[in-house]
C-alpha cells in the first residue's frame, strides 16, 4: 500500500499495464519528453521508448482514428486528449468508427481514451468539459469515472485490459487534490461495478467523479445537523451502469438525489432517473431529484463558475428538501 495522489495512481496503473503487456502503447500531444500537460506520463518515454510513447502531431481526429486503427489490428492504444474538451475535434472517429467496430466488424477495438475532464479550475468554456453524456448515448463505449486513487488505478488497468473502446474520465480537480491508499500489487476495479462509498438509510446519492467527495461532505452535514442518514453510491462506471447497485440502494432508502458536475439537461442523470422511476416506482417516497451544473457553457469568472457548478452546500439544501418531503 502507498498513499498517493489520484494522478499518481493513474500513472502507476498505466505504467504497470505497459510493463505487463507490450501491445499497450500511448499516443497524444506532448506526452513524450514533456510527460503530458498534466505530467501523467512523465518518465514514460525514458523507460518505454519512442515506440511505446508516441508524441503525435496536433490533430485529435488523427489521434483517435489512429488509435482505433491500431486497436483493430491488435494493439492496445491509450490515447490522451490534452483536455477532454478537445475530444470534440475528433468526435466523428469515436462515435462512427471506434464505437461500431465490434458490432459491424466483429473485431474487438481495445483502446482507451484518457479525458482530463471537469470544471472548477477557472478553465472557462473550453477547458472544463464533462463529455460523458455524448458518448453515453452512443452504443459501443464503456465509460468510467473514478473518484479515488484506488479506483483510478484499478479502472485504468481494467480499461486497458478491456476489449472495447473505454473512455476514461479523469477529473482535473482531483489530480493533486485527493490522496488515498493504493495497493502496489496487481488489482483491477471491474468495469460496470459501482461502489457504496458510505452506507446510509434515508436518502441515496447516486454520483461519480469529483462529486463523490462533495456527496460525502454533504452526507456528514446531513448526519450531524439533521440526523439524516445518507447513502453515497459511487457509480465508477457510467457505461455499463451498475443498475442493480442503484436499485438496491433506492429500494432501501426510497429517496434519491442524482448528482453530476455536467450540465443537468440531457446529462446522464436523466437516464438514471428514468431507470429508477421505471424499476423502483413502488419504492419511491419522493420524486427523484437531480443536481448538476446549470444549463449554460462553463463561465470563466469565479463568481459565475461558482454559481454554475454544483457544490456541497447546494447538495445539502437538496438533501434537506428531500428529507423533508
Amino acid at each position, binding site marked *: 500500500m502507498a498513499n498517493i495522489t489520484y494522478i499518481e495512481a493513474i500513472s502507476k496503473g498505466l505504467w504497470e499495464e505497459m510493463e505487463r503487456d507490450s501491445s499497450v*502503447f500511448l*499516443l497524444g500531444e506532448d506526452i513524450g519528453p514533456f510527460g503530458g500537460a498534466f505530467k501523467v506520463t512523465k518518465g514514460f518515454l525514458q523507460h518505454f521508448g519512442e*515506440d*511505446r510513447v*508516441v508524441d*503525435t*502531431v496536433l*490533430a*485529435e*481526429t*488523427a*489521434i*483517435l*482514428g*489512429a*488509435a*482505433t*486503427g*491500431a*486497436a*483493430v*489490428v*491488435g*494493439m492496445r*492504444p491509450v490515447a490522451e486528449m490534452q483536455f477532454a474538451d478537445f475530444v470534440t475535434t475528433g468526435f*466523428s*472517429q469515436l462515435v*462512427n*468508427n471506434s464505437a*461500431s*467496430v*465490434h*458490432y*459491424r*466488424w*466483429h*473485431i*474487438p*477495438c*481495445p483502446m482507451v481514451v484518457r479525458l482530463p475532464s471537469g470544471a472548477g479550475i477557472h478553465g472557462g468554456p473550453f477547458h472544463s468539459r464533462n463529455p460523458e453524456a455524448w458518448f453515453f448515448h452512443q*452504443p*459501443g463505449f*464503456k465509460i468510467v469515472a473514478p473518484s479515488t486513487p484506488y479506483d483510478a488505478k484499478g479502472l485504468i488497468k481494467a480499461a486497458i485490459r478491456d*476489449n*472495447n473502446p473505454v473512455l476514461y474520465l479523469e477529473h482535473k480537480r482531483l489530480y493533486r487534490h485527493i490522496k488515498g491508499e493504493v495497493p502496489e500489487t496487481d488489482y483491477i476495479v471491474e468495469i460496470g461495478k459501482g461502489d457504496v462509498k458510505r452506507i446510509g438509510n434515508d436518502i441515496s446519492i447516486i454520483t461519480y467523479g469529483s462529486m463523490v467527495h462533495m456527496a460525502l461532505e454533504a452526507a456528514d452535514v446531513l448526519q450531524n445537523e439533521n440526523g439524516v442518514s445518507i447513502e453515497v453510491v459511487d457509480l465508477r462506471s457510467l457505461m455499463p451502469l451498475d443498475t442493480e447497485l442503484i436499485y438496491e440502494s433506492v429500494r432501501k432508502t426510497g429517496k434519491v438525489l442524482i448528482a453530476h458536475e455536467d450540465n443537468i439537461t440531457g446529462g446522464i442523470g436523466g437516464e438514471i432517473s428514468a431507470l429508477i422511476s421505471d424499476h423502483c416506482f413502488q419504492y419511491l417516497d419522493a420524486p427523484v431529484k437531480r443536481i448538476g451544473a446549470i444549463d449554460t457553457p462553463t463561465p470563466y469568472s469565479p463568481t459565475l463558475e461558482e454559481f454554475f457548478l454544483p457544490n456541497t452546500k447546494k447538495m445539502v439544501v437538496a438533501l434537506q428538501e428531500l428529507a423533508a418531503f
Partner: protein
Amino acid sequence: MKKAKPTEKKIPKSKNKDFKITEEQYLQLYYYMRLTREFEESILKLYRQGKIVGGAYTGNGNEATAIGSAFALEKQDYLFPMHRDMGAHLVKGQSLRNLMLQHLGRGNSLSKGRDGTGHYADPALRIYGNISHLGAMIPMAAGVALASKLRKENAVALTYIGDGGSNVGDVHESLAMASVMKLPMILIIENNQFAYSTPVSKQKAMEKYSDRAMGYGIPGFTIDGTDLELVYKICKAAVERARAGEGPTLIESVTMRMHGHSAHDGAEYVPKTLLVEWKKKDPVMRIEKLLMDKKILTTKIKEECEKRVFAELEDATQFAVDSPYPPAEDAAVGVYAD
C-alpha cells in the same frame, strides 16, 4: 529534408527494378478487370430487381485504379478500400460470394447483415472496408500503418478517397501524422470528375490533387487512372517506398465516374460529351486491347475468362439470393466484445 517535387508523372525508379508484369499477371489482371465490371453490372441488375438492401455504388471507370493499386500489395499489407473499389477487394482475395452477401445484407455475410456493400472487415485478408463518412477511414489506415511500424511488421496500408472527400479534415490530419511519422501509408485520390452532382472544379482550386503532396513533404503523382499498368507501377513504387520506411505517398488517379453517383442517380448533370470522351479510355477496353496487341490475350482465352466470370457470378448471386437474412433478435447482440 528531401524536397518534394510538385508532381512527378514518371514512374519513380525502383530499387528492385522489378515492376515487370508477367504474362500470367497480365491475365490475372484482365480477369479481375472483367470480373469487377461484370460484378458491378450484376449489382445494378439486382438493384433494379429490388434485391439490394440499400443503395448500390459502382466503380465503372475506376477498375484500373482499384485493381492496379491493390495488385501492388502483398498478403501482409492492409487494404482500406472506398465505395468505388470493388476490384481492390477482389484482388486482395475477397470472394464474390462474400461481396454479394454484403450487398444483399444476408446473415452469413461478413458483417452478419449489420452493414452493407463494402462496409465489412476481413482480418484474415487484411481488408477493412469504409464507412459512409468520407475520409473517416484514413485516420484508421494511418493507425494501422503506425501499428505496422511499431510492430515492425513491414506491412503497408493502402487507402483511397474521392475528389470531393479529399476536402474532409480527416484527410489532412492523417497526412500530417503519416508524413511526420513516415508511416507506411499510401493514399490514392480518385479524381473521377464528380462528387455526387458536384464537378471537380467546385471542389478544388489548384491544378491537381497531387499538388497537396508537397504540403506534407511527401511524393505526389497525378496519373491516368484508366491505365492499369501505370497505376500498378506507380503504386508498386509507393509500396516499396513505404516498406523501406520512407513514408507515405499521395497519388491522384484521374478517371471518370461512368455511372450515376449510385444506382438511383440518373446523373443528368454530367455532360454527355464528357462520357463520350472518357468512354474511349474505358479501362477494361484499354487493357483488353493492350493484351490483344501484345498477343497475351487471345479470343479463346477471352472467352474462357468470360465463361469463368459469368459462372462465378452466377454462383455467387444464387448463393447470396438463397441465403437468409439474419434472425431479427440477432440485432441486439454484439455491441461489445467480450
